């Protein structure tokens, strides 16, 4: 079985973020980067499937040279080889272009399974996997929290709202977007790190038409939500009525109860 995992590098989650001067993105100068959390779980799921069914895990990542650290880390944890799509300023294209570039880069792999995180920790669109599936002509399932491939068919458990789940039988090849926190991610062993040195990382350029695919959405401005302070007196001195109004506001305005 061949599994391709799409992985993205994002700013470290502990970083203090500052909006950049152009107000289009954040200041990246003093940031450190890490793998987007749910992509890490996607890789873990791929490695577990490989351990059970055999085959190959190929990771694919889009971005500048610094993205290599995410790729190397994946190889050290057990992925077999990697595709690095290198291009300038491609880390900020929208989800359609991203998905198109990724889809073109992995099309030839003819994977049995494509896994990725359900959404990236930076933009958080939650679209890349879904669009890539569409472009590759694959069925997909989102927010997957369990993958069962013990039988003939692939069964996946999806997270719905309010504690509801859905089991789904998929035909392969297909694409799954994986939820965070569904397993214990393995650490890279020192042996794995040394072995990663010898694994293939193929650098490719984004397909020309993919990069020029255009955007269906653009970011016009990034800014911090304005903080507002406002005082309201409830109940006009009547405690009972005040309490009722407070409860109503907490339920319907603040939505905390």
């Amino acid at each position, binding site marked *: 079985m061949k599994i391709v995992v799409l992985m993205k590098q994002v700013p470290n989650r502990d970083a*203090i973020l500052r909006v950049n001067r152009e107000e289009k993105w954040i200041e990246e100068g003093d940031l450190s980067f890490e793998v987007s959390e749910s992509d890490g779980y996607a890789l873990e799921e791929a490695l577990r499937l490989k351990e059970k069914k055999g085959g190959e895990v190929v990771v694919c990542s889009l971005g500048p040279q610094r993205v290599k650290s995410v790729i190397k*880390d994946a190889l050290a944890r057990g992925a077999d080889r990697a595709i690095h799509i290198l291009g300038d300023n491609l880390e900020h294209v929208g989800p359609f272009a991203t998905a198109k570039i990724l889809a073109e880069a992995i099309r030839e792999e003819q994977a049995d399974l494509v896994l990725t995180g359900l959404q990236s920790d930076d933009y958080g669109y939650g679209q890349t996997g879904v669009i890539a599936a569409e472009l590759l002509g694959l069925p997909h399932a989102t927010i997957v929290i369990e993958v069962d491939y013990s039988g003939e068919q692939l069964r996946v458990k999806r997270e719905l709202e309010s504690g509801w789940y859905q089991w789904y039988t998929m035909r392969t090849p297909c694409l799954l977007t994986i939820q965070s926190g569904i397993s214990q991610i393995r*650490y*890279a*062993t*020192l042996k794995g790190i040394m072995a990663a*040195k010898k694994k293939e990382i193929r650098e490719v350029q984004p397909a020309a038409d993919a990069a020029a695919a255009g955007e269906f959405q653009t970011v016009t401005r990034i800014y911090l939500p304005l903080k507002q302070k406002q005082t309201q007196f409830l109940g006009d001195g009547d405690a009972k009525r005040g309490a009722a109004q407070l409860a109503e506001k907490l339920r319907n305005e603040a939505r905390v109860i």
Partner: protein
Amino acid sequence: MSAVVEEKKIIVGGSFLIEERTPEEVFTPEDFTEEHRMIADTARQFMDGEVRPRIDDLEKKDWKLARELVQKGAELGFIGATVPEEYGGLGLDQISGGIIGEALGRSASFATTMGAQGGIGLLPILYYGTEEAKRKYVPRIVTGELITAYALTEAGSGSDALAAKATARLSEDGTHYVLKGEKMWITNGGFADVFVVFAKVDGDKFTGFIVERQEGLANGAEEHKMGIKGSSTTALALDNVRTPVENLLGEVGKGHKIAFNILNIGRFKLGAMCCGGMKLMTSESVRYANERHQFGKPISSFGAIKHKLAEMATRTWVGEALIYRTLGLIESALGVAADAADAESKLRAIEEYAAECSAIKVILSEFADYCADEMVQIYGGYGYSADYPAERAYRDSRINRIFEGTNEINRMLIPGMLMRRAMAGKLALLPAAQALMDELLSPQLPSLDEDESVLAAEAKLARNAKKVALMVLGTAAQKYMAALAEEQEVLLGASNIIMDVYAMESAILRAQKLAASQGEDTAALHLDMVRVFCNDAVERVEAEARNTLAAISEGDELRTLLAALKRFTKNTPTNTVAARRRIADAMIRANRYVY
């Protein structure tokens, strides 16, 4: 094809005191390979993901958990990293060992457990064990299946370790030794399976043995310690315990060699662990200072707090420069050693830098204590509460000045070892001291150097500090001759100067190398750190030398020496206030230690 045998020379141990090095000659953390960096990442992730969340359980003496964590760490390769592959290790370099040590330092308790397991409890077997013993024990220690401990200290013999009273006698049939005695303060004592034990054969032959847990070998109750409460420390009673002759370490009567050589490794590992702890303490202090508001502002905006943060970062960065410079020296000496596969030549390569290892132990343990102390202060009242991390960090840090040779013992070892190397003709200390004395007596021309290279002023301070060290050492040696060993205060003074020399020079070379490879702009804050550090170091050197010289010299001689001292420590102060603010601001912005 004719092999061109290039004769490689090693940098002589202790030569930092009399020779000049170029940045290209020193190894720095900026020279880490990608694999080194990945090892650092995985080790840090393991500590933060598996160990630190469980520290409360470890402190409740859950040794089953400790064993599990050791095994998990072992699976990732942390115990066997530098052990040769034939014994189940990975055969990686000493740099990797240092990197792992640093990560372990994120939990002082677990670092101590692992320090015994992968260091002092394992290395004597690896380096001195019989082939049989090595094959029997090392692979199982590397996987964490067997937990090890190192039993040297006794109630009556700590610093004076060779005065141990434990005895060993050969059985009548000559097949095994029988050991008797009591050991004290044994790390992992509560749950170790295998012990490296030192005892005297025939009453006076100090010898090392491997001893398995068995009937007759009992550990005492857990000591009630100030810190590192998540590590096991107990006494150990040996009541006629037996161990086969194959478990003898090295030769009968040569146990001191084991004890001392293994300590060299233990010392740089301890330094690395301290450094890892300091990075964490600094990051946590920055985070807290950013969060905590007083007078309507985050306390990180106050100059008083910035000073602390900058100083914590500077010491961390300088300490790190020292560790990896020394590991780089050891690594290249190991590469040059005729047959680096044999244990003896490996240990000799490490022993070459014994003085440097002692310096690292002392400097890093004291830097770590400084950081812990300032961390408490930055946390204020919350620093005094066990509900916040500063209190534990403060208690945990203190032990580092005591074990692996107290800092007093290590301090005195430094000039002692350098002098011994000089006497043995391995280090040209005496000609250098003589040349300096000639320089002192000849008329001085004002120097007109207009060196404008990076950190030229600091490099000059370091060069001159070397002269101060030689002046103090030379004068002391002349006055006391062989009796110098009895003049502890003088030795301590000289040692402090020597350590500052090594620290200044290591920091300067690291920053120069960084500036050369990444540009002066990128290195700007590192250059600030070096300027701040050297500015203060030269003041320490001056004070230490003045007081020491006044104790060993008088009259005209003293006046000449003090005049020279004044010249050698002349320093136009840099604006350390502004520099420290810059150093702190970068961390405040990033919300963590960034160097």
